[in-house]
């Protein structure tokens, strides 16, 4: 395998595949994607349920089919794959150090790099559940991999903590495979995943959901024998008197995802503490010139179609940079997301790239706004008196579990150079 590549993409999930495909489509000659797994597709391979690709392919596909389509497109476009290989480090001068069991240590030189490592699940240690440490406490994604890819069942009687989509989808999947899911427990007073999953994953199979409840103890020695579940008060503190022991042999955790950035951090890319991912601009560029990022490594998405779009943008920018055609970074301005918006991406915008495509701003709100939410994008940064209102849009509702996307036509930004940045706000409507 050759040493020099125009664009190297790390990760073969939906972001990496779209980035590599887009790099070839935009004229990069030598494009390599690297993954530590034996086959490309990333987490899509274990998401056997339907619901993917309604935007991209106008079809309701299972995860593996969505991946297969991109794998086929990338292979046809001449993208090269290096599988079963672990990227150890990426230096600032674009040297990529890799290890695998076939070739030992490899070093490649890239013209540009795209980070697309996805995210990892929050584990028991990160949410500090007291109790013993028996076998039988797993993240929902680990159980998903065992059931859907290895053909293994991790238990017989389950309690699931967290009402995220993976947790609810696993509740259904385990039920279909003959296990008993005795309840799903959610700390917050609202569902953290999509309402449709409440219907088609929990209600269809009579799986009870307990909102404003949490697991306060794990019982059992060699294997989980049960968990203690408590109701929580408005401050999310457990109410001791409500404690109840639920016998089970497995506890699954669906308690959040964290962007994976060990590599990018080591290279020196700046991360946003709110998202846990690199600060990026609208072209996918990170704080380090020539290094791009896309997908769940940047922030956790809820629809794969948007991940593919982000990968496509990053692949294009990486290609332009490698060819020396990316305009200098003179006109980069900050975007600030304020008030009831928990976080948003991109954190910066590059003016020179705005001429071509509309600007896509994506964000999550802090708490549900069921009676409507209006979003405002204005010129200028900080302070009460920001500049001219450039864009506004009203939504019938806004929920933390569902990302809000604002697509702003670039004609609105004629004066951006003078205003120095953008501020995004939301106003909750009341019934």
């Amino acid at each position, binding site marked *: 395998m050759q040493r020099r590549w125009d664009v190297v993409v790390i990760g073969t999930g939906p972001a990496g595949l779209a980035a590599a495909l887009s790099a070839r489509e935009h004229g990069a000659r030598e494009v390599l994607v690297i993954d530590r797994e*034996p*086959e*490309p*597709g990333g987490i899509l*391979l274990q998401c*056997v*349920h*339907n619901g993917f690709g*309604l935007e991209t392919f106008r079809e*309701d*596909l*299972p*995860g*593996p*089919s969505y*991946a*297969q389509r991109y794998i086929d497109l990338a292979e046809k476009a001449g993208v090269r*794959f290096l*599988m*079963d290989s672990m990227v150890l480090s990426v230096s600032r001068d674009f040297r990529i150090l890799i290890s695998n069991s076939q070739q030992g240590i490899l070093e490649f030189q890239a013209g540009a790099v795209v980070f697309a490592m996805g995210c990892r699940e929050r584990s028991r240690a990160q949410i500090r559940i007291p109790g013993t440490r028996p076998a039988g406490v797993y993240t929902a994604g680990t159980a998903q991999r065992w*059931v*859907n*890819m*290895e*053909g293994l069942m991790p238990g017989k009687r389950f309690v699931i903590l967290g009402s995220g989509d993976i947790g609810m989808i696993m509740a259904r999947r385990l039920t*279909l*495979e003959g296990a008993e899911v005795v309840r799903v427990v959610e700390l917050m007073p609202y569902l953290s995943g*999509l*309402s*449709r999953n*409440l*219907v*088609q994953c929990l209600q*269809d199979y009579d799986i009870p959901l307990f909102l404003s409840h949490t697991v306060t103890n794990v019982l059992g020695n060699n294997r989980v024998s049960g968990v203690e579940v408590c109701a929580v008060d408005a401050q999310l503190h457990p109410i001791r008197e409500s404690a109840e022991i639920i016998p089970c042999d497995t506890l699954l955790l669906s308690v959040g995802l964290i962007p994976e950035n060990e590599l990018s951090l080591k290279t020196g890319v700046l991360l946003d503490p709110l998202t846990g991912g690199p600060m990026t601009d609208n072209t996918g560029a990170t704080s380090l010139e020539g290094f791009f990022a896309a997908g769940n490594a940047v922030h956790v998405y*809820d*629809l794969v179609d948007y991940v593919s779009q982000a990968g496509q943008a990053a692949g294009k920018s990486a290609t332009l940079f490698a060819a020396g055609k990316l305009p200098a970074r003179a006109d980069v301005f900050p975007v600030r997301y304020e008030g009831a918006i928990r976080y948003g991406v991109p954190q910066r915008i590059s003016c020179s790239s705005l001429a071509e495509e509309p600007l896509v701003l994506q964000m999550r709100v802090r708490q549900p706004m069921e009676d409507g939410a209006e979003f405002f994008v204005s010129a200028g940064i900080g302070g009460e008196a920001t500049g001219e209102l450039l864009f506004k849009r009203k939504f*019938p509702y806004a929920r933390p579990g*569902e990302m809000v996307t604002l697509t702003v036509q670039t004609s609105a930004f004629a004066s951006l150079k003078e205003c120095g940045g953008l501020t995004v706000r939301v106003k909750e409507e009341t019934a």
Partner: protein
Amino acid sequence: MKPVEKELICVTCPRGCRLRVLTDGDKVLEVFGNNCKRGASYAEMELRDPRRMVASTVRVCNGERPVLPVTLSAPIQKRLIRQLLREISTVTVEAPVKMGDVIIQNVLNSGINVVASRNLKSAGKTH
């Protein structure tokens, strides 16, 4: 018969509209709370003949993976789901498999096929 109001959450898209459906027996009189036309047809279908997409896995013989993900060519009646899973659990396929290959034809005489969700190579051949 006196009209009865039922509550449903539409599962057609990620939005999840909360529907209130006025029914007379199995006839839908009116649907409230839907933000698009699909909500009304979902409510009618959900009360008359509820259906779901179902995805699962089947055993693989001589494949690079022990199981193959499968899905349906169209949504199936909710009441058939348990039986469908029993059918799927009896199947073993021989690798290689191509995405879209029919794994079970006309499952449970429903007119619906169980199909492969991805390609799966034979054991030993890696990417």
